[in-house]
């Protein structure tokens, strides 16, 4: 694969990964993606406040807190995959640890660059778990309302993500279409 063609934009990078591994089906097989990328993934019980971590040894190693809800574990893995795709050079020999991801916000500010990494990893994870293209297909012919709780719940279950994430993704899509 041509490295120069890899996008540094989190959403585009997620789309590239989905296309490259031909996994554009819901629910998106995040563990398969990690496996195909040669990443060692371990699900282990961790302190409640810790979601996951990533560090490099001979391979990249991702650890996911197995005590969290399965959908949250999928999100943690997708978020760490975002770090893998976008930030391994910056992480270097350190262990990058992720606590609870409170916001999917796209414009958090930071001088350290750590928050920027988190925002990017969240955007990557959002697109990976709920690809825009699949979401548009799912919503075709329906009335889109980001406050329709039954719709949110149904789609969250289909994509195996939290309702919070689905609400955010639908909101983002509406915004995108208005533009």
């Amino acid at each position, binding site marked *: 694969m041509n490295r120069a063609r890899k996008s540094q934009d989190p959403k585009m990078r997620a789309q590239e990964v989905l296309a490259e591994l031909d996994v554009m089906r819901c629910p998106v097989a995040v563990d398969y993606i990690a496996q195909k990328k040669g990443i060692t993934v371990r699900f282990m019980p961790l302190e409640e406040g810790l979601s996951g971590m990533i560090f490099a040894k001979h391979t990249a190693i991702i650890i996911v807190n197995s005590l969290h809800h399965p959908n949250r574990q999928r999100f943690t893995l997708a978020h760490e995959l975002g770090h893998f795709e976008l930030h391994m050079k910056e992480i270097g020999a350190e262990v990058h640890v992720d*606590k609870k991801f409170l916001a999917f916000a796209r414009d958090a500010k930071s001088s350290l660059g750590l928050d920027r990494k988190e925002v990017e990893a969240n955007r990557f994870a959002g697109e990976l778990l709920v690809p825009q293209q699949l979401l548009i297909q799912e919503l075709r012919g329906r009335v889109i309302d980001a406050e329709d709780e039954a719709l949110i719940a149904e789609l969250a279950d289909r994509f195996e993500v939290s309702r919070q994430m689905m609400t955010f993704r639908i909101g983002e899509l509406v915004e995108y279409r208005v533009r």
Partner: protein
Amino acid sequence: MQESELYSRFGQRVRQHRERLNLNQAEVARAVGLSRASIANIETGRQRTPIHHLYRLARALRVDVHALLPAPSEEPQTIIDCEIQSAVELSKREMEEVAKVVGVITSDESRGV
């Protein structure tokens, strides 16, 4: 608490019991079969005591071995020997857990598990 701290606490206990019995370091050394310098070093935590010496020390000081050992709450904590980065600050407990997990996985990897 670091490992060295554990040995200095052990040494403090040895000294307390020796003084309680009004013994000097040379007397304890003779009873245990060590040099006076060794006893002095044990008391300051500079020398690490093997288990068979622990039993001899306890006998010489007329106490149970447990009386010389620091309490479990005083045991050394995990040494954090990896560089950790996080957007949100980690508690000490969390940092220790990260270090532990990384240590376990790294040693698994080097054994080819």
